[in-house]
Structure formats: structure tokens, C-alpha cells
């Protein structure tokens, strides 16, 4: 694999995580439990889709073919999406959406902190831009995990169930293959193992305060980085791609 191919693949993984989670959050528009949260979740969606745009633009530039960020976002088939499985999981109740966000925000925060030092200027610039937003996301999701976990019997029960369920997807966040090895050698990215312990430490602190339990041993799933997804992604893409598939190249 050439360095350019690896870089393109890496950028697509970053972009797809943000795009798919952003799309999931946008499904809350008009359905939030309270107005403030409706606005908060759609604000998060906007930040994530904005980040995805930046990653896709750079990916398109690296690829150097006749595709732009919209082609990459809307015109690929399911197997070409390389997001982790966590972000494509369905919204469930508000608590599940928050837990999914919480597990992802803590990862993104540590990853972007490392990417600030990337030898690749554009990656460092996107990370620097995004991390400022991610810190707000992180605070929001962590506060809600505590509030719901240490809340009523019902909220505790529900958010615990979601945490148990979604903890099957945390190891995949640290997935690495040839793509990462090539870029790591060039100083473009870091080894995800460098911040994995910190990740679990950070989420554990919040989980403790929320009086929740992270399952000690949990069956771990992966496949997203290779394009092998859960059944949920297909349904999501049907909606995400509808307009571009029906009216190719439409703009508004």
C-alpha cells in the first residue's frame, strides 16, 4: 500500500465516524426530550458534519480524482464506509444516545490531542479546529451520563443497559492495521495504544461518579474499519443518500 492510499483511507475513516454520528444525531431534530437538548443534539450534529466535510475535502484532494466531499459523503456503497460500529448504532432512548456520544467523545478528544502533533499540516489543522468543539461535546455527554446514572431508579437502569450494550464497541475505536502502521512510521498519526489506557481511565472516572458499572469482560465487535457493518448502517444510508441517488448532483 502506498502512503497516499493509506492517507486517503485514514481520512475516510475519520470522516465517516463524524458523518455517521452526525447523521444519527440529526435524527433527533424535533424529537429531543426537552427543547434545550433538541438544540444541543442538533448542534453536535452540525459540528460533526462540519468536521466530516473538512476530512472529506482533504481526502478528495489526496485522492486527486474527480470526486469532491459530497461525492464521498453521498455516493459510496455501504462497504466503502469505514466508520466504527459504535457510531452507527441506533439512537434508542435519550440515555442511549448520550452513552454512545460519551464513549465516542472521550476517544475523539484524546485522538485529536495526539493529531495536533501530526507531521501532516492539514491533519493537525483539522484536529486543532475540531478539538475545541469536541471539548464542549465531551462535557455535555459526561454531565448527562452522571445525571442519568445517578438520577432516578428508572434513568439509572436504562442508562446502565445502554452502557452494557455499547461497551461491546469500545475496543474497535483503537483498531489499527496496515494503514495506521504506514502513517505512524511517517509521523503523521500516533499509535492508538498510546492513549488507550488513558481513555479507559477517563471514562471510568465518569462512570464511577454516575454510579454505573462498566462490564469487566465484554464480547467485542469490530469490522467497521473494513467496511463490514451492522444491519443499521444500510438503513441509515438509505436516508442519508436518498436525495443524491434520486436527483444526482442536485444542489440547494
Amino acid at each position: 500500500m502506498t502512503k497516499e492510499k493509506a492517507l486517503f483511507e485514514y481520512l475516510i475513516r475519520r470522516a465517516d465516524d463524524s458523518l455517521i454520528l452526525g447523521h444519527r444525531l440529526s435524527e433527533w431534530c424535533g424529537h429531543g426530550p426537552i427543547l434545550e437538548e433538541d438544540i444541543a443534539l442538533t448542534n453536535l450534529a452540525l459540528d460533526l458534519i462540519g468536521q466530516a466535510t473538512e476530512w472529506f475535502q482533504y481526502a478528495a484532494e489526496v485522492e486527486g480524482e474527480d470526486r469532491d466531499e459530497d461525492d464521498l459523503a453521498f455516493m459510496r456503497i455501504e462497504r466503502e464506509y469505514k466508520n466504527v460500529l459504535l457510531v452507527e448504532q441506533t439512537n434508542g432512548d435519550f440515555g442511549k444516545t448520550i452513552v454512545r456520544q460519551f464513549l465516542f467523545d472521550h476517544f475523539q478528544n484524546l485522538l485529536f490531542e495526539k493529531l495536533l502533533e501530526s507531521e501532516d499540516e492539514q491533519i493537525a489543522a483539522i484536529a486543532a479546529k475540531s478539538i475545541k468543539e469536541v471539548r464542549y461535546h465531551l462535557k455535555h455527554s459526561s454531565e448527562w451520563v452522571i445525571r442519568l446514572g445517578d438520577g432516578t431508579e428508572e434513568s439509572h437502569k436504562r442508562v446502565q443497559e445502554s452502557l452494557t450494550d455499547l461497551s461491546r464497541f469500545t475496543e474497535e475505536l483503537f483498531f489499527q492495521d496496515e494503514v495506521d502502521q504506514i502513517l505512524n512510521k511517517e509521523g503523521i498519526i500516533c499509535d492508538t495504544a498510546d492513549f488507550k489506557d488513558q481513555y479507559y481511565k477517563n471514562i471510568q472516572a465518569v462512570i464511577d461518579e454516575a454510579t454505573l458499572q462498566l462490564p469487566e469482560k465484554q464480547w467485542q465487535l469490530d469490522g467497521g474499519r473494513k467496511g463490514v457493518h451492522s444491519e443499521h448502517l444500510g438503513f441509515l444510508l438509505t436516508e442519508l443518500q436518498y436525495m443524491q441517488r434520486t436527483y444526482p448532483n442536485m444542489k440547494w
Partner: protein
Amino acid sequence: MTTDITAEDIWEFLEDVKDPEVPVLTVVDLGVVREVNHIENDHWQIIITPTYSGCPAMQVIEEDIKKRLEEEGLQIDVKLVLHPAWTTDWISEKGRVKLEEYGIAPPQDEADKSVLFGEKTIVPCPKCKSKNTKLVSQFGSTACKAHYQCLDCQEPFDYFKCLK
């Protein structure tokens, strides 16, 4: 046509271009215009940077900048750069005053964001100046604002949140 327009004139013209979401601020007040570069003759390049990644106003800002300067008979390229990342420190002093008069609390110096649960920021009410206010939501009507309420005069208000 060759005119004797200077970079200073361009900055002056840009003072007419408003932020579409916070129309009391010009794009210069907001700090999104980073550079004005002369290319040749009437051809200029304007470098801008987004406030938030997904800020939907950026495209409008780009078009408005072009439109305003083309009125002066200039040929304009607008270039968007991400680095260095925009910060609320770039909002001008004049801009901060205008924000407050408009009813939006300007960004305050905040504790280090890398601390998960740092100290709470005190945001004075733009109406009655009371410091007895509470955060309603970190996320407000646009990406750049949080939602607060004054506990003295009861006014709900937007806070232009600090981004560093």
C-alpha cells in the same frame, strides 16, 4: 481598469459585510477575515477562516464578501483556511461592545477547557449587568452561542461562548 485601491480600503469595504447570524457584527469584528492580499491590478485575495467547523454562515459570508468587493469593480478570490484555528480572542473590542448592546453576552475568559468539570464561568447579564446568572444549555441558537438566564431580571439571553 486599474484603480488605486489599497488594502486599507478593502478592510474598510469589508466593514459593510455583516455576519448573517449575528448581524451587529461585521466579518472584520468577528475576526474571520485573516488577510487581504493584492495579487495584481484589481485582483485581490481575501483569506477567511471558519468560526465552527459546521458553521452554515461561512458560505454566505464568502458570497457576501465577493459581492461587496465586486461592487468596487474588483476581482476577488476568497480562500478558506483552517489554520490557525479561529478563537473568540479575535473578536474586536468594538465587536464585543456591539454584542453586549445587542443583548448577547460577549465571550468571557474561561478556565482551561481541557479540564472536564472546571469552575463555572460567570457571565454577566447583558441587560441589567447582574452576575447572578445561570447556564441553561451549553448549546444555543447557533453553534457559537450558549443559552443563559439572568436570575435577577429573569431575562433569557445568548452568550457568545468562549472558543480557544
